[in-house]
């Protein structure tokens, strides 16, 4: 290839060769939409579940702590692609028959999106859990003492004192997780879900213009994650505590 490669940036505006009423740009945008929906939905699951698990891991109760530890061991130690195959090929089979059938009868797009969201969400939750645990771990033991000595229940101490500070401490690693999930979501192309990476691959195959296709995808990933970084940086600045960790 090299010097004989014919660049054609106009390819994105050409109608697709499958006969659908769409351009190749529309394909990329459809892929982008799936990627964004998938990443945001799984992040929401990961945040809620991860915070809950993080609290459990630190709870002064052996059983709760063990459940948290087991969760992390399971979901953090298995490659995400293996987890995805498990969700897609195994989970519908081992669920009670009527639930498995219900899943299998969903439109294939919905089914793939739902299972992929669960997969990425639960995987990411294990990582969020560890960041929350680390955040809680940075707080002096005296903070819990002080909160409960004032008569707050342990639940209130977490809700009003410990978590608000631990979450602030955890913002930088959580930003990394958010960026990771946008990238890791590309794994769903292996089960046939047309995310941004799958669409760019398809585009390359249909047009014979792989450079344009993959450069476009690269650029879009960079822009998305740059936006994520800017937003999270603002959040970080907004909740920064004067005279405390990370402040000037």
């Amino acid at each position, binding site marked *: 290839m090299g010097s004989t490669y014919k660049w054609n940036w106009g390819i994105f505006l050409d109608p697709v060769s499958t006969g659908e009423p769409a351009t190749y740009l529309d394909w990329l945008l459809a892929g982008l939409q799936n990627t964004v929906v998938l990443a945001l939905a799984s992040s929401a699951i990961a945040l809620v579940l991860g915070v809950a698990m993080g609290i459990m891991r630190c709870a002064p109760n052996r059983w709760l702590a063990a459940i948290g530890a087991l969760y992390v061991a399971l979901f953090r130690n298995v490659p995400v692609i293996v987890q995805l195959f498990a969700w897609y090929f195994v989970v519908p089979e081992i669920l009670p028959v009527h639930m498995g059938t219900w899943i299998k009868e969903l439109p294939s797009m919905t089914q793939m999106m739902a299972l992929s969201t669960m997969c990425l969400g639960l995987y990411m939750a294990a990582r969020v859990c560890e960041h929350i645990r680390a955040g809680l771990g940075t707080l*002096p033991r*005296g*903070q819990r*003492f*002080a*909160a*409960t*000595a*004032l*008569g*707050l*229940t342990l639940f*209130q101490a977490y809700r*009003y*004192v410990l978590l*608000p*500070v631990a979450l*602030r401490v955890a913002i930088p690693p959580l930003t990394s997780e958010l960026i990771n999930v946008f990238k890791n979501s590309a794994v769903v192309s292996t089960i046939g879900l047309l995310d941004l990476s799958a669409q760019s691959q398809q585009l390359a195959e249909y047009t014979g213009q792989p450079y344009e296709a993959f450069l476009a995808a690269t650029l879009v990933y960079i822009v998305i994650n740059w936006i994520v970084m800017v937003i999270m940086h603002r959040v970080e600045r907004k909740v920064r*505590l*004067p*005279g*405390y960790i990370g*402040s000037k």
Partner: protein
Amino acid sequence: MIEINNISKRYGSFQVLTDCTTSVAKGEVVVVCGPSGSGKSTLIKTINGLEPIDKGDIRVNGQSVGGRGTDQSKLRSKVGMVFQNFELFPHLSVLENLTIAQIRVLKRSSDEANACGLKYLKRVGLEAHAAKYPGQLSGGQQQRAAIARALCMDPICMLFDEPTSALDPEMVNEVLDVMVELASEGTTMMCVTHEMGFARKVADRVIFMDHGEILEDTSKEEFFGNTDARTDRAKQFLARILHH
């Protein structure tokens, strides 16, 4: 007010408290001293149940701490506690630090809580700092705010766990002044401290601990005046901290 009967506690194989018995009457000021590692901080933390005990019984206002029928949180809300490292909540303003438990535990309205918070901030000379965050205050100011936070709960007694040990020397007095004022108003207080000047000035009784045991529990006059009658370990301790 506070009755401590034969309490013991161990961390694994380490005996932190051994058969400690003492009491604090209403309006009394008791100072607890002793070398570090003697168990005095653990003792004071058992009184509001922050440190559970293995044996014995603690009663505050007749209620058993950690007893079956006791609402632990409610009991704690009535016992003010001040910590060595202040432990203000860094994400809340000074005033919010003073109001959070009033609102969440005592169920006061936020107006009531703010009024009460400002009243006590004024008393400790910090009303100008109400909107600041703890990280913007000096250590002495933080500790005074922490005392005000405890007072906002209308405590029946106050516990101080080495309140001046983490302070720069020039800030010790501003905190001790607040404590002296509380003592002179008849507040029931138990203070773990090395400030013997404070003990001489306001204590009714002095407790001396070493290796988890209460070795001395006597009046201030007896403790500082009749030094010949003290135990050897108390004599050594006093010689070390009074001779500089």
